[in-house]
């Protein structure tokens, strides 16, 4: 495997990390306002992700940075071509980030309600738009021979991409509910489990539909198909584990389903990075868009040393905050 492929795998791995981790904190973010019945419950919900959401978001920053460094043309075309989704994702992440920090800073219900709304929007919008974006990446978008995006916003709103947005939304909501059930005790835990039982089958079905469309119609790659099947199996197991209230297994299941689905997507995409639906010469490929061998080598050394370290101390964080959170009525 040459270094450009290694970096394709690395970018995929970073997005897997991002979606598995931020996936549940997006889900929790959606639940804060919709599921938390009073301020105490909402604080309990936010408390489950309080120590980790910012670290989870760095997976995105690293993934985008790795994309920029390893495949500059991919980064350039994707971010300029998907202009409006990227803009909305940024605005949502801004609002969401400050909302977590600011909501508890004033003892005023109206103030908190506003920030809870910000957390809801800030978690929902990126979930949907990342789904839309990655569905479009694997499906392909109109590119000119010089790899510039030549489509409009309407080209990004095709049925497959819209389904992708819906899938990410449903799966992250489910992932979040399972995480809440895993991380809380008392009534919230019971209700989160019940919610996961309702959302789970629907999300799993949507995911299966999306993967089937992708793997049977758009990109027929046997390896990707196998991974897609595995993703669906993991989702089914998660539904089953949640039903018998094995919360740890349920969370492992949703995390595995997300990871396998993202890996399936990247496998289906390979060796393309962004297929062109207009001029075939516009397709960005791993070999064509990769940075120079030296640049990739430097990045490989850095990543080989520091990525395990990151996994180690982020893992430690989850260990430190492993305790379930109770409810504090004020």
């Amino acid at each position, binding site marked *: 495997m040459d270094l450009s492929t290694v970096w394709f795998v690395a970018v995929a791995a970073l997005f897997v990390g991002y979606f598995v981790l931020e996936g549940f904190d997006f889900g929790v973010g959606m639940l804060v306002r919709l599921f938390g019945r009073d301020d105490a419950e909402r604080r309990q919900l936010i408390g489950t992700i*309080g120590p980790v959401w910012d670290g989870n978001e760095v997976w995105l920053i690293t993934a985008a940075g790795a994309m920029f460094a390893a495949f500059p043309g991919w980064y350039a075309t994707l971010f*300029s071509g998907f202009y409006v989704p990227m803009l909305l994702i940024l605005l949502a992440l801004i609002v969401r980030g400050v909302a977590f920090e600011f909501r*508890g800073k004033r003892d005023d219900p109206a103030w908190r309600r506003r920030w809870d709304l910000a957390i809801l929007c800030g978690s929902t919008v990126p979930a949907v738009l990342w789904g839309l974006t990655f569905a479009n990446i694997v499906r392909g978008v109109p590119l000119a021979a010089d790899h510039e995006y030549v489509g409009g916003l309407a080209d990004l709103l095709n049925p497959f991409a819209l389904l992708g947005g819906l899938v990410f939304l449903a799966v992250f909501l489910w992932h979040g509910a399972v995480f809440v059930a895993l991380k809380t005790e008392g009534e919230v835990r019971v209700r989160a489990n019940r919610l996961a039982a309702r959302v789970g089958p629907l999300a799993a079905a949507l995911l299966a539909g999306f993967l089937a469309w992708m793997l049977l119609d758009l990109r027929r790659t046997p390896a990707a198909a196998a991974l897609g099947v595995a993703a669906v199996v993991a989702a089914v197991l998660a539904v089953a584990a949640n039903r018998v209230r094995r919360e740890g297994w349920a969370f492992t299941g949703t995390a595995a389903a997300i990871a396998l689905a993202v890996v399936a997507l990247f496998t289906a995409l390979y060796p393309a990075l962004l297929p062109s639906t207009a001029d075939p010469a516009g397709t960005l490929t791993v070999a064509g868009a990769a940075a120079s061998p030296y640049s990739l080598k430097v990045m490989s050394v850095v990543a080989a040393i520091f990525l395990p370290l*990151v996994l180690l101390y982020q893992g430690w964080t989850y260990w430190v905050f492993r305790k379930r959170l109770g409810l504090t009525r004020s």
Partner: protein
Amino acid sequence: MDALDVARWQFGVTTIYHFLFVPLTIGLGPLVATLQTLWYRTGNPRYLRLTHFYGKLFLINFAMGVVTGIVQEFQFGMNWSDYSRFVGDVFGAPLAMEALLAFFLESTFLGLWIFGWKKLPKGIHLATIWVAAIGSVLSAYFILAANSWMQNPVGFAMNPETGRPVLTDIWAVLTNKVALITFPHTIAAAFLVAGALLVAVSLWHVTRRPGTDTGEHRFALRLGAWVTLAATAAVVVTGDIQGKIMTEVQPMKMAAAEALYQSEQPAGFSVFTVGTLDGSREVFAIKIPYLLSFLGTGDPTARVEGINDIQARYAAEYGPGSYAPIVPVTYWSFRAMIGLGVAAALIALWVLWAQRRGRTPGNRWLVRAGLALPLLPLAASTAGWIFTEMGRQPWIVFGELLTRDGVSRSVSLTEVLTSFLAFTLIYAVLAVIEARLLLRYAKAGLPPPDAAPAEEPDDTAESVPALAY
């Protein structure tokens, strides 16, 4: 107005805004860590209360730095895709390293610090804030290495097929002499901002709330004033070296800093000029002889090249076109940077003098100046960035790529304008909220002495929400 202009305005606005929060993150982090270390070492609760108090201000500020930082990373691809394609092979590496080495550390360990007061042993908990602070400083290093490459491209070769630079020596990029001097200059400026914040906040408490935790606030006042003074000294020393390196690698920027059109030997430095800055007419100017020669080269009698000579040289080298930046911008931003920085140091010195041996600063003007103190170094660092970035124009990568060739071709004016307006609007709203929160928490003062060491979500509810979300 075309998409290029709007993209440039957007970059300027979002970057300046981002950098209002960054200096406090970089400078205040180690100061909070120092306060906590003092508590750890002495067990004196005064330091713990100060840690909580300034820790809160630090976190309110930190959140804004984080969320405005993501915009920066995405913006290169969104608005400057041709720039990204051109520089990716070189510029991408420090950016990715920043995320992998610095941002992960910063965010993960800050999370541990905020929520780990009761979950971690005291010593480990203290270490988390230090590691987070180191992460912030590291991130500054990588992003400044990336920026310095745009000022002084090194460690690359041109790929003749693509016409784009290819990284050949990462070590050269990371030890770029511009980076090596810009880094301490920026870090010192960050401490200047943080020190000034301590001065302003504690001065307010000492003069407006006399009798309440005066000992604690007087300690913070002295600490802040000394940090401000030491940081100013470091800013001056590093800035001086930086000026000499700049004269060497970007002579046009130095000439534009002085609006020096004709080469002079020796060259003086004008403190103030009334008239036109295009060199044609000078109504009134206060000039210090020899100073520009000294700032640029270290030799007070050396020749300093003027804009006209450099322009002629560049036109011969790079082809026809104008290679001078907008001179009034560079001229005034350079002076604003220096003037405001020096003013901050003078005020800090005055405060320090006025509070000597238990005195309470009484002079009305001093107190007012002291309360406004943090704004000065903030404005100075803003001016510094405006100078360094505008002074590089018309280049986006000095000598290699023009700014106008870096903009996204596939992005329409409407799109850039929409995003520019959206960011400006949301940033303005957040600025108001952020400023109010900071003032509110700054005025609230230290937590009560018997307060639990920071609240966690599973603790008993707090009357004033503290470090928990």
